[in-house]
């Protein structure tokens, strides 16, 4: 099978699994965990850099899937997308909770932001995504990495970088449109 066909058949299987999970099929849940436990855990690890926190997030994600599988709507995107968006959402919540506990000072030097971006980029191993990020203009890359992997809101990004909110929004938007263009058509095979 060509990769595109493979991805399409996996998507079909994912949808069937979610439909079975919505009917409380714990065997389907097990198969889904074996498919997505690793990417969900890896995303949480990449963002939290803490095994205990990543485990907590992974657990939250899968128990949410168990409860909310019926809410998945195939007309609004792929099952993979829905699952990983849920995972990202929970990981962002955990990052923000951790930041509140640590009472991190709101204003930090620009160097530390660059460190955050560099560190996050180092953890991006998927070749095409990494390449697409590296090819973005530096200020767009910084905004997207801080938002997605750093869990910062656009207002926080504006504050940290000392730029107007409108500029932060523009950088995120332009960066996302450019990323979409670079990544469209080069589909990776789902892990």
């Amino acid at each position: 099978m060509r990769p595109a066909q493979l991805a399409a058949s996996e998507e079909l299987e994912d949808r069937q699994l979610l439909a079975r999970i919505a009917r409380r099929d714990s065997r389907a849940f097990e198969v889904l965990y074996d498919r997505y436990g690793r990417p969900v855990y890896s995303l949480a690890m990449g963002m939290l850099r803490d095994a205990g926190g990543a485990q907590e997030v992974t657990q939250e994600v899968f128990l949410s899937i168990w409860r909310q599988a019926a809410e998945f709507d195939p007309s609004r995107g792929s099952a993979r997308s829905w699952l990983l968006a849920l995972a990202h959402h929970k990981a962002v919540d955990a990052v923000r909770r951790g930041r509140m506990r640590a009472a991190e000072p709101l204003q930090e030097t620009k160097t530390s932001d660059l460190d955050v971006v560099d560190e996050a980029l180092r953890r991006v191993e998927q070749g095409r995504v990494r390449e697409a990020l590296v090819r973005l203009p530096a200020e767009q890359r910084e905004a997207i990495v801080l938002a997605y992997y750093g869990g910062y809101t656009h207002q926080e990004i504006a504050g940290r970088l000392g730029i107007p909110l409108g500029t932060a929004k523009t950088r995120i938007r332009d960066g996302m449109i450019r990323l979409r263009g670079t990544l469209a058509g080069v589909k990776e095979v789902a892990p």
Partner: protein
Amino acid sequence: MTHEALRELLPAYALDALTAEEAREVRAHLETCDRCPGELALLQETATRLAGAPVQVPPPPQLREQILAAVRPQPSVVTIPRGWAIGLAAAAAAVIVVAALTAARFGQQVAQLQQRIAAQEQVLAILAGPTAQTSVLAGSIEAGVKFVYDRTRGQGALVVTDLQDPGRQSVYQLWLVAGAVPESAGVFRPAPGRPLVIPVRADFTRYQAVAISIERAPFGAAQPTTTPILVGRI
């Protein structure tokens, strides 16, 4: 906010980079707008690529067990026709389920820890009593199973430190044996990698033994249908 202003927030929404209030407004708009959901779907596909990009690391195996155990069908309470009920919800097998759900729901590991500590304290309290006794169960299989109990206070607990998984179709069932008549004290499954504590409240002066047999999942049987694999005198 206007359609145009909300549409401009979609990229940040796909990255989870909006404040809670902004995200609510976008969600409300998505319900009524006929163009924005399609645009968001494309942005979310891009975000999905970012999600799958970090270095892939395998999650620890015990996490799989913990998560799957939380959704496995489990009987919650077993009522015994002698007027005393054993809250099997308090049994550690169920404790793990409850704790896993609680931890997920409230983002707390505290509850999980407290439940485990509560179960341990219960055993310690029984052991600390001057009239406490311990019976080691033995039989046809290698296992680490003890029954600690206090006759005067009517409290006991089955402590399972090592017991093989009975398989998907089966459960272990605990029996209190009065003369030749076994009475069910609940069903359980061993918790992989951690001790299991099943509290049992009963008038132990009435019983001479505790026994464990393998029965059909999930509810066990009214009377043992197989020869007990482990027995301990009390």
